[in-house]
């Protein structure tokens, strides 16, 4: 990777700081919210995670692209095997170094080629640690990557991002024992894979779809990008679902939506949790979790009957809630991993168990 072949590029933050680097991937300027992830593996999964919609993603791990990009084969449910959605969701990518030379038995493209194909710009040669420290100290900031002209700043949080990433029409997947409604707010494929592995029939519905009158055994609320309060309709539907007392399981944004529906409040974290090493505690037990969120549930606002299920061992923030009486629970982290650890995938089993109990 000789910088000679790459044109200069720069990353400008809203506080005026400038980071100089070189362009790779698609050579066009872009802007968004700058966030960092400390995960050391899984760039294909991270970049296609719909929760990163509207964001410029910084990898703190300096060597990205080593094992290339896997093929675009699909499984029996027509889900891409090697990705978390059908295309890159992040607006751009910031790295210290990318590998043009990649090697893996499953690799089809280099990161550079993939970004080009998907028209997503990247910038390398950045001191990503210095950038991360800045974000940590000042909080998340807007930023723009300037390659071919100034695009101006863009604040994704002013948009209803969920609307952008959610499916437009319902879809039925699997043919199993229990029927679950899956509220798609930008769902990661590996959540679907985890659910489908457990003998379920899924009806995946758009974020604002009214499922409350349908027949189902359980409701799953997916992850997704942005501020949960922009998802008014979804919150309304979940509130109705709570009245139905059928099992509810939420992940990430799903945790926040469930909390909002229950009557709690959410707030924006200074710089969010985006990593694969977040320790969460439940009772005496600790779990290492994968996370990607900028907002959190304010545990002090949880209404009566609700309890905290998990909290973050690093900063004490809420990582999941549970109802004391009824079968509702959610996790702020990603029990499905991909990328990241899978210590907590037993939560999917819990959801299935609750549906089973509901049937009895």
């Amino acid at each position: 990777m000789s910088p000679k072949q790459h044109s200069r590029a720069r990353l400008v933050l809203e506080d005026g700081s400038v980071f100089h680097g070189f362009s790779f991937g698609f050579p066009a300027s872009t802007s968004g919210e700058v966030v960092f992830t400390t995960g050391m593996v899984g760039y294909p999964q991270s970049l296609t995670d719909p929760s990163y919609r509207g964001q410029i993603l910084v990898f703190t791990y300096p060597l990205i692209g080593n094992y290339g990009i896997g093929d675009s084969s699909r499984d029996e449910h027509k889900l891409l095997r090697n990705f978390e959605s059908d295309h890159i969701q992040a607006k751009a990518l910031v790295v210290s170094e990318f590998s043009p030379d990649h090697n893996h038995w499953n690799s089809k493209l280099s990161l550079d080629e993939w970004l080009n194909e998907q028209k997503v710009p990247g910038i390398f040669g950045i001191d990503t640690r210095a950038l991360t420290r800045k974000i940590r100290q000042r909080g998340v900031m807007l930023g723009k990557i300037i390659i071919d002209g100034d695009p101006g700043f863009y604040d994704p949080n002013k948009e209803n991002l969920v609307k952008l990433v959610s499916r437009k029409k319902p879809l039925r997947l699997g043919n199993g024992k229990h029927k679950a409604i899956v509220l798609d707010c930008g769902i990661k494929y590996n959540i679907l894979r985890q659910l489908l592995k457990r003998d379920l029939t899924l009806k995946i519905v758009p974020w604002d779809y009214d499922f409350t009158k349908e027949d189902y055994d359980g409701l799953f609320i997916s992850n997704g990008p942005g501020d949960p309060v922009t998802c008014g309709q979804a919150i309304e539907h979940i509130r109705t679902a709570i009245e139905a007392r059928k099992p509810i399981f939420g992940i990430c944004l799903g945790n926040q939506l469930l909390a909002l529906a229950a009557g709690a409040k959410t707030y924006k974290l200074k710089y969010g949790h985006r990593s694969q090493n977040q320790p969460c505690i439940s009772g005496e037990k600790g779990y290492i979790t994968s996370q990607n969120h900028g907002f959190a549930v304010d545990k002090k606002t949880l209404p009566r009957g609700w309890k905290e299920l998990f909290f973050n061992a690093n900063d004490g923030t809420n990582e999941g809630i549970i109802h004391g009486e009824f079968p509702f629970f959610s996790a702020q982290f990603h029990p499905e991993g991909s990328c990241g650890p899978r210590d907590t995938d037993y939560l999917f089993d819990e959801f299935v168990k609750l549906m089973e109990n509901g049937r009895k």
Partner: protein
Amino acid sequence: MKKSNKLKKVLLLGSGGLSIGQAGEFDYSGSQAIKALKEEGIRVILINPNIATIQTSKNFADEVYFLPVTASFVEKIIAKEKPDGILLSFGGQTALNCGIELHKSGTLAKHRVRVLGTPIETIIATEDRALFVEKLSEIGVKAPRSTAVSSVSDGLNAARKIGFPVIVRVAYALGGLGSGFCKNEKELESHLKLALTYSEQALVEESLKGWKEVEYEVMRDSKDNCMTVCNMENLDPLGIHTGESIVVAPSQTLTDSEYHKLRELSIKVIRHLGVIGECNIQFALDPYSEDYRVIEVNARLSRSSALASKATGYPLAFIAAKLVIGKSLTEIPNPVTGVTKAFYEPAMDYVVVKFPRWDSEKFWNVEREIGSSMKSVGEAMAIGRKFEEALQKAVRMINPRVSLTEHPFAFTDLKKELERPTDKRIFALLSALEQGYSVDEVFKLTMIDKWFLYKIQNIIKMRVELKKQLHGPISPELLRSAKELGFSDRQIAKCVMGKDDFKSEMRIRGIRKKHSITPVTKQIDTLAAEYPCRTNYLYLTYNGTEDDIRPKKKGIIVLGGGAYSIGSSVEFDWCCVECVKTLRKEKIPSVVINYNPETVSTDYDESDRLYFDELSLERVLDIYDKEKPSGLVLSFGGQIPNNLALPLSKCGVKILGTKPKSIDIVEDRHKFSKILDELGLDQPEWKELTSLKDAKEFCFRVGYPIIIRPSYVLSGSAMSVVYSEEDLEEFLKKATTLSKEHPVVLTKFITEAKEIDMDLVAVNGEIRAYAISEHVENAGVHSGDATLVTPAQKLYIETVRQIKWISRKVMRHLKITGPVNFQFLAKENKIKIIECNLRASRSFPFVSKVYGINFIELATKAILGKKVERADTRAFDLDYVGVKAPQFSFTRLRGADPLLGVEMASTGEVACLGEKVEEAFLKALLSTGFRIPKKNILLSTGGIKEKTRLLDYVKKLREKGYSLFATPGTADFYRKHGIEMTVLHWPLENKEPNVKDFLAQREIDLVINIPKSNEKGELSNDYYIRRAAVDFSIPLITNAQCAALFVEAICLYGENDLEVKGWSEYLDSEE
């Protein structure tokens, strides 16, 4: 924990003398454990005969026993100390094996000592392959297909079923000893024979050669919380021991799916086994699918865990000790951040490369191929933000004179070199890619993941770019790119100026600084900057634009010792740590530079700032520029920092203590000689010569034998002794090229002389404290391999007086301030100086601990200009004796002749205390793995002089009731003197009864083989006997003085007569 179970006192087993496969990493883990336990108010009793370690320092453990870590000694200590619990997982395989033995014999139950942490059943399950595989299959986890065999024929049958190639493994082995690949029946047969001599059981396994080797470090607490601290990928695929491989952390070529699949398996296996504390799990991963095998689990701290700890900054051993006493991961605060808990998995934002250090040059006849058993003696760890940067750093760390692009190694058969790697592996890879081998071709021959090869190719490409600029101006952009890829100023100078001398290096440095191309300081904070941290664990990189920290308070820089190698080991780490501790006491901020992951000096809590980086002129200057310290200390880290004295001072660095000019005088043979002549002090005759004719003339004049030190080594060891003109000619032809550029130094070798070591601390040329130690062996055995006795017991008062007088003269003349080591020869009351080092020496921890006087503290105070009182001379008159004995690793160095000579061969040392020399000596020998012979002793006692010298001792052995066996000449001699013995024929003769068979069947309990001369020759009978003794684990003595002392010792003491006395008990007896 219930009240009644509250721990008050625990026993910690150390790992003994440093050997291949078990080195300084256990000083790190044991030291951290002691700190962690003492914080909980638990009394810690430590057993470790390794006197050079930090863990055996004063005011650390509550009591230290410098005694063998063997079941019988540990039992005696248990009976005496009555501890509540015992820790087995911090002292390597030695401690683990000892613990299993104590458990099996019922000793632990008898004395009601609890094994803390991982239950003993779990340890046994991880050590016994059959049990281990069974455990894995219970949870559906795959292990390599294998069969346990106890005979060669069973092994052959098993292999036929599994299919060749197969691998042979031995249970209960240090670092894979006796393991190896076998392509066919013949290879398997010879391998099994050897393997079954180490162990009753061997394993024949499916070969997974070419699979990736990946390890995880796992922690689990008693509440079943479990996590992985770090994963590591071996650059070399399976088949090359992880201790022999370049290792990167975190893994570079694994996808999310692979990384987390193996992580999940790690946790599953560790939970099922029931490990409590820390452990290491190794996987093989198919390079063409996600198929895997679990290779092994080490249910203890290991070399890998030390590496993982230094690589991530996570205080692994410290936390492990807390888990072992019942704390949980979620309650222990993380000492690194101060705000978070111990329960999290570190995220790295840099890459770490570990590189092994081999010392094959030191051994005659040793195999240089690297494979499934470990031969490396040390390692370096490099940190960078590009793989190329870290790799290039690592190579220079291993040998500061060699770099990846500028090295002296040439390969005649590259293809073979790639297929059957040697210790020059990395240079072969580079040469191949440079000479036009494609990445695909190299991959096919080595199975090294292409990603690594591409990266190495980037380095080659950059070198080509740089060379295009020869004698022209170099652009700042190119210079920056080269620095980002880890090129040193010297490497760049060589490319663009054709020279890499001091002047050229400084020119590149000047250009760099003019263009503001300088490295930045980054912190290792375990969390990739996600949370604020307090750590001052630092490294420098060119792949960044901003310093993480700017030092506020002026400190003092202390240079560490670098990678462990033969001759430079944990002793120097002890010296550095003691120096830093003294600085702390004096309230001076300390800044350590070192890069050895096996050390305590690189622990997060030892110094105020730690730069885990190179000990090169360039890097030390970079750090000096950033730190602007009040001074720099380089006299405690051994020869690597010592060599930097002159160049650093030329660059204006303020070096504390002895002046660099004095160091230069002493290091330069010519200058030092001149001074000794001026002072009227004697030294063995020597000359530097450039032609064979002159060499012959010199030798003829002073007489043989002669010690030769070539300045350029072609093959074989660097230093040798020649006994005749033919020897001389042959050596000069084979081993070196003789020319104006490459002179040799010839020194008269004085035989039958006593060798004496003197360690001292001087202030302004006045000696404040000194210790005199005598060698048991006569001169000719390298001081690092010699057995040292302090206080000296058999020196004339006259000799001691002369030594004091000589050393005082030299010190005063050079006005030395700091630590000094002298070596003298004494023959017929005439004293000659053979060496003077103006730095701390290998024996500083030994004498400091024997006398209870911290020489390093005194030396540090001296250097700082603080008042140092003259030590009370009565303090050096002890009621007990300390004996330091070498620890060898010949068993691992296949083929090496276990003979002692002028080149150092030991990898470690132990030292014990006793009422008499004999007692301390015997304890020390037992500590190195020696056993007191039960019945049969084989003698082969060299020339007539040696035979006569040993006559009385051989008599004593017979009187003591030993059955003596001897080679024909030896038997003749002693029979003539009326000593009964059985003749055994030489191994290379086809006559019965033969030495060969007696050794192979382990009929012999001790071999005393005194070579006729110290000549290292072809594969002789003597060599065969020595090598067989090593291969069949039979105690071996090759030196007449040692043999004599050993006989005296076993005549005076049985094992049960050796006193079990703590260090403080010896020291108190003096007060």
